[in-house]
């Protein structure tokens, strides 16, 4: 009997504790949402009590941790606590079967309904940027030529200044010279990469940035290129709750871009597109290490050759002096 009483007491205590912990979690989450909404001036005169009431109702409706991204209204998105939004956005994504590229002519003009939205973000028109674009145009098909439905497609946007005919796009950008011209802004009449849209995308991503995108936000004009993937259109929402998939190619050797883009295309087809399982592999790390070692040998070899040349020249001078 006594044992039964002790068990009952323990069960009641446990239930009370978990209830209290759940209440504390609700208060914590609503508190952080309130602070976020307050900072973004989105309270519209709402008091803390009203906000808490609405927030409690919202959380009660949400089944534990899994809620489709579509169910989150765009106006509420900035107020979502990032850590919780992370799981909900990740689970919203259907299995991605294919990736296709398209040009982005203005921020926010992305068509809705795609499974994932990706952006090729360049900060400069360097050889490295050209190498990434070449890999994209070689390995990724035009989104209009894909058989997969938009919901199963990862659309990879390349910001561009002008629209060009579909016929011209096919194979046009597979040529290295055309890619260089696309990046150089030489001809005002033809389409070229829009660094302005890329800048706007960076600004949207870096509005209250999460750790996943810190390297993009902290980078300068010489860093990059990058590929950013998100579950929704970046153009429509800011600040953006995670998850993101950021492929920062700053520390990667140019020759490894093909391997990295190929790993990225496999990664977006994973159930959790942001877990980087296919990108941060031993194979990719080893390749980068080998290529960096090979590049760092070049100045050493040049220096050694310089020393040998200098010694030979000095010896020749001494010999001619003796004669």
């Amino acid at each position, binding site marked *: 009997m006594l044992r039964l009483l002790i068990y009952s007491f323990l069960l009641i205590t446990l239930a009370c504790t978990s209830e209290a912990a759940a209440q504390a979690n609700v208060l914590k989450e609503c508190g952080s949402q309130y602070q976020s909404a307050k900072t973004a001036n989105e309270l519209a005169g709402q008091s803390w009590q009203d906000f808490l009431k609405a927030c409690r109702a919202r959380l009660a409706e949400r089944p534990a941790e899994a809620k489709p991204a579509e169910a989150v209204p765009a106006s509420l998105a900035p107020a979502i606590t990032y850590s919780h939004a992370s799981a909900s956005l990740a689970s919203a994504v259907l299995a991605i079967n294919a990736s296709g590229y398209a040009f982005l002519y203005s921020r926010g003009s992305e068509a809705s309904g795609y499974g994932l939205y990706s952006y090729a973000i360049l900060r400069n028109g360097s050889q490295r940027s050209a190498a990434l674009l070449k890999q994209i145009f070689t390995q990724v098909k035009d989104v209009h030529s894909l058989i997969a439905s938009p919901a199963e497609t990862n659309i990879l946007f390349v910001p561009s200044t002008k629209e060009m005919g579909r016929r011209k796009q096919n194979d046009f950008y597979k040529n290295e010279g055309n890619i260089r011209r696309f990046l150089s802004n030489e001809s005002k009449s033809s389409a070229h990469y829009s660094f302005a849209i890329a800048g706007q995308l960076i600004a949207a991503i870096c509005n209250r940035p999460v750790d996943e995108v810190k390297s993009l936000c902290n980078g300068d004009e010489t860093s990059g290129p990058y590929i950013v993937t998100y579950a929704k259109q970046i153009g429509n929402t800011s600040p953006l709750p995670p998850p993101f998939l950021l492929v920062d190619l700053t520390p990667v050797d140019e*020759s490894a871009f093909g391997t990295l883009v190929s790993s990225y295309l496999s990664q977006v087809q994973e159930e959790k597109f942001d877990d980087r399982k296919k990108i941060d592999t031993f*194979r990719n790390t080893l*390749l980068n290490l*080998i290529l960096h070692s090979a590049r760092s040998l070049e100045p050493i070899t040049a220096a050694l050759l310089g020393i040998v040349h200098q010694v030979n020249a000095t010896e020749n001078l001494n010999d001619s002096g003796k004669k």
Partner: protein
Amino acid sequence: MTLVFQITAIIFIAILLRVGFQIAYPEVPIDGALTKLFVIAAVVIVAVLTFVHLMRTKSG
């Protein structure tokens, strides 16, 4: 270990490394810098093996 044997070993190991790299990363082009790296790696491997061989014969 004769010098001829060492040079043969260096060439063999360098070729092995190059072929191994090509199989592991078929999409990466092998340029002059990579070839130099493979040769240097082969030289280091042979140097280490020679050192170990010398130590063993000396102690034996």
